[in-house]
């Protein structure tokens, strides 16, 4: 790994971490969502490094584009938004930090032991490869996914509509 690459990766990691911390620690719920967007976009950067360009594009389009929009709307739907920002009321931060550190320590320890950090040549997976795999080998999960999307859509409409008793 060149020094430049290490710098780039460290920056990305910093952004992911800052975004994640901002999401849970920010005092304003809308700001939390924006911090989350930063973390998600920076994750896309990591996908680029892993030579999964298509996945990175999908990440930006779906998460930074779709999910963040949806989350903002969800926050702005709340009756509590009238008259000012909703405070982020994450309680028990001390205990949360403890759990987070413990989990990070466990996973970090295992990852270091597993010797996955050694640099190696990653295969480049482009959109066509992904297309071939979900139209071939994974065609059944792909079709089931469409049913899942419809179920999600119908379910959300049932919950969100106000007309029905």
């Amino acid at each position, binding site marked *: 790994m060149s020094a430049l690459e290490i710098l780039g990766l460290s920056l990305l990691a910093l952004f992911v971490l800052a975004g994640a911390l901002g999401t849970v620690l920010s005092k304003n719920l809308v700001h939390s969502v924006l911090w989350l967007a930063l973390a998600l976009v920076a994750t896309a950067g990591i996908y680029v490094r892993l030579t999964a360009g298509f996945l990175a594009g999908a990440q930006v389009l779906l998460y930074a584009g779709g999910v963040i929009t949806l989350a903002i709307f969800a926050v*702005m739907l709340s009756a509590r938004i009238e008259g000012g920002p909703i405070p982020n009321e994450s309680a028990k931060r001390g205990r949360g930090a403890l759990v987070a550190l413990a989990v990070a320590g466990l996973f970090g320890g295992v990852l270091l032991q597993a010797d996955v950090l050694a640099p190696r040549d990653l295969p480049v997976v482009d*959109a066509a490869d992904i297309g071939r795999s979900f139209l071939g080998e994974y065609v059944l999960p792909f079709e089931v996914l469409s049913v899942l999307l419809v179920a999600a859509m119908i379910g959300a409409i049932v919950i969100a509509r106000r007309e029905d008793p």
Partner: protein
Amino acid sequence: MSASEAWIAAGTFTGVAFVIAAGTLIAAALLRVRARKHSEARTRTYECGEEPDGGAWVRFHPRYYLVALVFVIFDVEAVFLLPWAVSLRSVGAVALWSMLAFLAILLLGWVYAVKKGALRWV
């Protein structure tokens, strides 16, 4: 492009983006374009030069959420359409039918949303 060249390109791009964003802020600070500390203009909602009408913290109508939700579902569909389109030639007729089945099922969701008036605006 080799891996390190790609990193230089990506880094340059990100750097330029940061310089532009930070540059405007720094320039504004240097030129002292700012409202006086306690003026009314400083706290007012910004609406592209229009006179703001009401506060920014208003409750949205649920229909925005419904539309955004349907958008996300079809966003997912769009993400699947691209790899399908570029691999169609190499996979053949099966690909066509698989995607048509996928789209047909998703279309049912859309029919439901329209039929039940979830996308009706008024």
